[in-house]
């Protein structure tokens, strides 16, 4: 059992009175010690405190949040002792970056034996990443809060906040190589699709609805319409989260923007039936193999949820090129999301395009405001911006570059650019 800070403050006050009484030779000052003494004596006569067996279970909903979504935490407390617990203070430890929106993570309870009490609180849409809840701190105090017994449960749990996904709408993507599965990407071959490809002589068994009557009348033999097959493509989204993404050139959180953009892009491409993979370069270097479906999307989002900026031990050029070579079939599509701040980026894109991959680069646009900067900072910023522009121009000669900005919704920003179609 430990004395609380309050007890120590009371004792200090009591001895301060005795000291003052001696200092000023004023015996009446010592009378003020008596109320404090009575409080401390009364507290010692109260029943002794024991750390009663308490069971606390926590339920987090959703355990995997899709971003911009409140997280509800429900705690159930059970008194497993045969005694009544008069005053029990319970506090569920929260990480500092998480804020309680409603309810409370701290409460005082009185629990009869075997009683179960439940309470819940809502966390205000936590930021992307993994968050730890707990441990729950249980404090048993006496009536006067002068003595306490503190016990800490080992009930630490995690929940994951995935990056926010914006609906991008149908992405008209063309690849040099398409997969055998039906999808939405024109294959430049006859097949099942909606775009007219050519006419061919009628063969018994052909669908009569495909007969081109005008052409048949002109040529004197039955001909049918053939359509361009629409299939899927293999796409690797490469996310460059090297420490350059934290540059002052960006007036906003470029890292979060890049991560959300990558999530939106992957989600849309997977929904269109494509085989999508992900390679992340940052403090945590990881990749997700190409695959289809919602499970793949969850895998990708899980990887994006823990992205942190920073330099990996290996250079980006080596990492990206080796990942592409090992997991991406030749002539597939590479979508690079990068702040384009490293000199090595144009060279890396050149190598990728030379190997026959279709490359499209997305880069966050920089701010133009120079307010609040001194002269030297302004000059430095202008030099950095000019160097970046040169780099982007160099990349433009090799691949399509699209500048994206958080101030403009991604969907119209992509639609405004023909380049997105003409890959």
């Amino acid at each position, binding site marked *: 059992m430990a004395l609380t800070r309050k007890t120590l403050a009371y004792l200090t006050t009591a001895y301060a009175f005795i000291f003052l009484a001696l200092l000023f030779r004023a015996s*009446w000052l010592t009378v003020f010690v008596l109320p404090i003494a009575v409080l401390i004596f009364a507290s010692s006569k109260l029943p002794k405190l024991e750390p009663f067996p308490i069971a606390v279970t926590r339920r987090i909903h959703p355990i995997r949040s899709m971003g911009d979504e409140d997280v509800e935490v429900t705690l159930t407390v059970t008194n497993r002792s045969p005694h009544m617990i008069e005053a029990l203070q319970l506090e569920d430890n929260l990480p500092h970056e998480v804020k309680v929106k409603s309810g409370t993570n701290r409460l005082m309870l009185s629990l009869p034996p075997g009683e179960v009490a439940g309470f819940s609180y809502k966390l205000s849409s936590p930021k992307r990443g993994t968050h730890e809840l707990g441990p729950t701190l249980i404090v048993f105090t006496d009536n006067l809060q002068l003595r306490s017994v503190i016990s800490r449960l080992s009930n630490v749990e995690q929940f994951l906040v995935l990056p926010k996904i914006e609906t991008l709408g149908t992405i008209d993507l063309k690849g040099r190589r398409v997969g055998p599965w039906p999808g939405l990407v024109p294959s430049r071959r006859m097949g099942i699709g909606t775009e007219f490809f050519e006419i061919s002589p009628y063969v018994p068994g052909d669908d009569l609805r495909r007969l081109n009557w005008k052409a048949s009348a002109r040529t004197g033999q039955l001909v049918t319409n053939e359509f361009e097959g629409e299939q899927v493509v293999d796409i690797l989204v490469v996310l460059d989260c090297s420490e350059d993404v934290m540059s002052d050139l960006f007036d906003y959180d470029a890292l979060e923007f890049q991560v959300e953009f990558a999530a939106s892009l992957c989600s849309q491409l997977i929904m269109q039936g494509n085989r999508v993979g992900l390679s992340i370069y940052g403090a945590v270097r990881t990749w997700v193999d190409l695959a289809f479906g919602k499970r793949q999307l969850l895998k990708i989002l899980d990887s994006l949820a823990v992205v942190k900026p920073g330099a990996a031990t290996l250079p980006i050029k080596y990492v990206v090129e080796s990942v592409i070579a090992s997991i991406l079939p030749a002539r597939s599509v590479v979508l690079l999301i990068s702040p384009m701040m490293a000199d090595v980026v144009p060279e890396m894109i050149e190598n990728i395009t030379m190997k026959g991959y279709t490359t499209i680069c997305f880069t966050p646009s920089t701010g133009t405001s120079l307010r609040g900067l001194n002269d030297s900072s302004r000059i430095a910023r202008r030099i950095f911006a000019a160097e970046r522009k040169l780099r982007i121009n160099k990349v433009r000669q090799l691949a399509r570059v699209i500048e994206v900005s958080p101030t403009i919704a991604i969907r119209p920003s992509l639609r405004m650019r023909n380049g997105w179609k003409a890959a």
Partner: protein
Amino acid sequence: MESSLGNLRLRWNLLRAIAAAIAIATFTLTLMTIPVAIWILWVLGLIIGIAVSTIALVKCDATWCRITLLAQSVLFAIALLSAISRGGPAEELPILLLAFVMILGTEQLLSLTCNYGAQFSLSNSASIMSFNIPTLQRSLDRLYRRLAWVGVILGAGYLLSVAIASMGSFLSPVAPALSDISVYVLVTSISLAILIVLREE
């Protein structure tokens, strides 16, 4: 459900109103022991006292509770120093003692209100509904009982202190030296006893 929730809110708000009244009464009582000549302190003390006590209990916020206690302690220290400078509080000792006991009581009241505030002072009913109403009712009953306990103990402490102080004043005409020594001896013994009790724990 609605009625029990309303009842709960009513009892909680009543408790806060009582706490605010006690805090303001403590400020007033402490100011009564300060010479009227320092009238600016009177006005300032009362305004600040009412403001901080109200904010502390409306918000149920630990920082505001500390500010309230700090303001009370500063005023009490001024009262004490002015009494020392006058050579003793004379007839004002019981009031000064009552002010001190009330500061202790306010401290207990504010800290308990802050501890329980998180679960009762929720701005909307939806939040309070996230708890079991019977659990909250039991907690509130318990809070009332605790405060009653504190009241009884502090009341007993006050009466005891006043009795001992009067005993000193009874003794002083007969044996002035003995009255001083008796209080010193008593208090020093109590202080030692406190240390022994704490050590035993």
